[in-house]
């Protein structure tokens, strides 16, 4: 067979729109899962038993249910009880909640790995609880958490393709339309492969740079 990518040229603006939507969803969901993950990690390492238990249930629940089931529940299930949310918001929220469950795991293990004496030093210096967390606990935990968090984020980007199943025409959604329009699935999906690989590669470069920055005192040892 002959491969002719040029026949996709008329569809490029359309697919670019999809890529842009994917980027938007992903940026928002990355931020969302970072915030949700950090909050849940705090809850899961808290001294309060109730808070700890509630956060563990959240993490266990959303890690153990397929993402597509969660998504369908939010998008097709909730309207049954009168809750309507548009596809874009549903996508961002669902990704943030699911991603947050995994992110909380990663940040939690980063927090547990901190030498307790470091936190005690911050406490006796008179820093408030919130300051101890924002100035010491979180940044020190991120030093070890940022790499595994990168894997979670890359997974999140890949998972965002599932949003095409709730009528959101992001990258995968537009590709499906173009493929059925042109009858050229091979070419279309080759482009899609490259697009996702580029996107995730960029994120992994960013994560690596962030990891180096957070551990800059350790020099070559962390590269």
């Amino acid at each position, binding site marked *: 067979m002959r491969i002719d990518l040029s026949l996709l040229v008329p569809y490029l603006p359309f697919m670019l729109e999809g890529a842009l939507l994917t980027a938007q969803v992903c940026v928002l969901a990355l931020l969302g899962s970072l915030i949700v993950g950090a909050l849940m990690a705090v809850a899961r390492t808290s001294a309060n038993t109730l808070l700890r238990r509630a956060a563990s249930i959240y993490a266990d629940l959303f890690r153990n249910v397929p993402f597509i089931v969660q998504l369908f529940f939010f998008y097709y299930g909730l309207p049954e009880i009168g809750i309507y949310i548009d596809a874009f918001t549903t996508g961002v929220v669902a990704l943030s909640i699911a991603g947050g469950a995994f992110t909380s795991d990663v940040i939690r293990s980063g927090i547990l790995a901190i030498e307790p*004496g*470091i936190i005690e030093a*911050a406490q*006796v*210096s008179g*820093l408030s609880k919130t*300051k101890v967390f924002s100035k*010491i606990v979180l940044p020190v935990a991120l*030093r070890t958490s940022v790499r595994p968090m990168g894997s979670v984020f890359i997974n999140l980007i890949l998972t965002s393709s599932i949003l095409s199943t709730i009528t959101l025409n992001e990258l995968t959604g537009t590709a499906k339309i173009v493929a059925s329009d042109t009858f050229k699935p091979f070419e279309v999906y080759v482009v899609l492969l490259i697009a996702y690989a580029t996107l995730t590669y960029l994120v992994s470069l960013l994560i690596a740079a962030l990891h180096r920055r957070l551990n800059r*005192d350790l020099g070559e040892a962390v590269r």
Partner: protein
Amino acid sequence: MIKAQSVRKVFGSVTVLDGVDLTVAPGEVVSILGSSGSGKSTLIRCINGLERLDGGSITVDDFDVSKPKELAEARKRSGTVFQMFNLYPHMTALQNVTLAPVEVLKRPKAEAEAEGRALLASVGLADRADAFPSQLSGGQRQRVGICRALAMKPRYLLLDEVTSALDPEMTADVLDILAKLAKEGTTMVFVTHEIEFARTISSRVVFLEKGRLVVDLPTEQFFAADGGLANPRIAQFLSKMRKD
């Protein structure tokens, strides 16, 4: 004034502090001696509020450390230096020193940094201010630890076996700094195994055994044959420490 009255601390079935009374007045250097497990470090950790008391009370300048609101005030008045340094690994030496003055005392950053650099210079670390803890030797880390505590201008300095993780040469560096501070009139509570050093800088020596404060004497009397040494347990402890 630091006032500990009938302090009790229990870990599980072990009573670590069993009715300890201790008063430290401004200007005093009080050394706490005792074998490991005698409760020395726990006493320090009770004074700075890292351990909850199971009985008795501790006040720092009349602020009760068992009341959360007052603990914050008590903590502003005392600075702690730790055995394992416990520096913030993601911050430079200077940032370690300036964090609390800026965040707790709300000092302007430039001012805190100027003071921090001066403090670091006073312990011979002027050129290491921008180094991270992982780039410093143990002795240098502990000197940063001392500066971090001093930066808060504490009325009381709590020192928890601050040379136990250092080799003899680095120990000497750190002890020189402490001797200088003692001479300047800094109030110190000094948990240590450095008997001879304790003897030279302390105004008082207390001896803990199995969570009880056995002896609390002016330094000279503590080391006198008819004073602290008259207690067979103390005599045995001192001769053993000197042999090591």
